[in-house]
């Protein structure tokens, strides 16, 4: 198994001598936030991720694109160890956060530092808007009420939701529109002040206006956070991201500066996908 994987790796490097993972990322001076080295993920017998190596620089937005079932969500979920909720899952290779091994850390700590926003907004239905945002703080042992109130307000501001909900903080979180719910979920994630935010198709359930709001938000958040966003929508990837990675059939085909990927991809498969010839 290992042999096959190594060969693939070599092949991958030799075919793309000028643009590839490392060269694209080294050009910029930002520190490396997350680094994946030869990550393989299995669900039972299904080999869902094949030898993924990728670096994610700090304070940047990395978009992951690819057709359905290509492993982009799996990769995202392996970063904060959410895939572990699936029984029978197994991962090999190395994933680091600021140089330390994610899989050697406590999963709870990993998830505090690497937050996640899901495809379908999922505010906690038994909680008010305020309590939803405060949930992460309270359940991690925060007791200072004044501080919690401040953080909730700040997070709602950051998620561009404050003006819409400031008079109804005690209302149910699920009483909001779907677009507002998603921003509530972003606020909830921001409240526990993660360093990295993973977004799994955060706008795919939303209308165009809400989508625009989320995209603007991503753009603003990048100054403070490192963002990895999985998207089906290529225009969205082009609009919001600094780097784009193209996944296909569980493999990382190509990763580069977003502009490069969308104007002059080095791989035929990437070009075919972004020009809509398949996927």
């Amino acid at each position: 198994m290992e042999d096959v994987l190594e060969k693939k790796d070599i092949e991958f490097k030799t075919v793309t001598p000028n643009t590839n993972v490392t060269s694209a990322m080294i050009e910029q001076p930002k520190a490396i936030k997350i680094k994946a080295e030869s990550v393989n993920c299995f669900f039972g017998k299904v080999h869902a991720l094949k030898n993924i190596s990728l670096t994610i620089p700090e304070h940047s937005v990395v978009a992951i694109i690819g057709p359905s079932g290509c492993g982009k969500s799996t990769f995202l979920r392996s970063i904060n160890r959410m895939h572990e909720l699936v029984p029978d899952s197994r991962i090999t290779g190395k994933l680091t956060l600021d140089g330390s091994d994610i899989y050697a850390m406590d999963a709870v700590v990993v998830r505090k530092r690497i937050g996640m926003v899901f495809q379908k907004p999922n505010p906690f239905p038994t909680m008010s808007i305020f309590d939803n945002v405060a949930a992460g703080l309270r359940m991690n042992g925060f007791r200072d009420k004044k501080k919690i109130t401040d953080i909730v307000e700040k997070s709602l501001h950051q998620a561009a939701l404050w003006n819409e909900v400031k008079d109804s903080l005690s209302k149910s979180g699920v009483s909001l529109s779907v677009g507002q719910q998603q921003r509530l979920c972003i606020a909830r994630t921001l409240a526990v002040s993660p360093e990295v935010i993973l977004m799994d198709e955060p706008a795919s359930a939303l209308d165009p206006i809400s989508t625009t709001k989320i995209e603007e938000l991503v753009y603003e958040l990048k100054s403070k956070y490192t963002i990895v966003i999985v998207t089906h929508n290529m225009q969205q990837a082009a609009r919001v991201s600094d780097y784009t990675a193209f996944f296909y059939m569980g493999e990382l085909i190509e990763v580069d500066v977003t502009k490069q990927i969308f104007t002059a991809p080095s791989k035929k498969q990437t070009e075919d996908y972004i020009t809509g010839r398949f996927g």
Partner: protein
Amino acid sequence: MYGLCILSALIALIPLLLIFYHTISLGVSALNVDFFTKLPKPVGEPGGGLANAIIGTIILVGLGSIVGLPVGVFAGVYLSEFGNNKFATIIRFLTDVLNGVPSIVIGVVAYTIVVLPMKHFSAYAGGFALGILMIPIVTRTTEEMLKTVPNSYREAALALGIPQWKATLRIIIPVALGGIVTGIMLAIARAAGETAPLLFTALNNRFWHTTLDQPIASLTVFIYNYGVSPFEDWIAQAWAGALVLILLILLLSIAVRIVTRQRY
């Protein structure tokens, strides 16, 4: 098809209506203040009540709940939230088996492991038997109700860095609370209505119990004893006892619903 469904629903309601009709029409005549405040009178002496049996039933169900509810709820939480393994499959199967065990068998078991070593019947033994009866009902409904909570809430909670046990306790259980409470109420209603296991454990008592270490009266055993007696006033009191039992459970259900209702 639609008509058939309506018809079946109506047929299903008939026994319930009959029960209400009979217990009310035959029991109301024996209901009076004495019924709730006085002890049973000896044969031939008119009047008296079932105060000790009403309190006895409440105590027995209370003792049963102390045994059955925590075990049932926690087992249900385990099966739903942490039960992705063979051990859980076995527990699940055994719980279903326990659910199918006739209640009189549970009474005999409680007799063997509680009454015999203590050498006398007691409220404790009765509560123990009822508790055992309640466990599988609470376990399975708790598990089923927790399983209806969408996984996205679990994921959202974990992604915030909340430990799993805290997420389960403060986010997942509250979402399923209504259903879990329904299961608990079912178990309580079932326990309150049991006679067979009490015959072997709590026995009966025509007087006030002074400690829980003694035989204790219960409505169901009194209903049984009075119902099969040849005395008209006892039979009427048996109906009244049945009516009170139904009303007790109804009131408890309503009270619990009010206390645990969702804010949203």
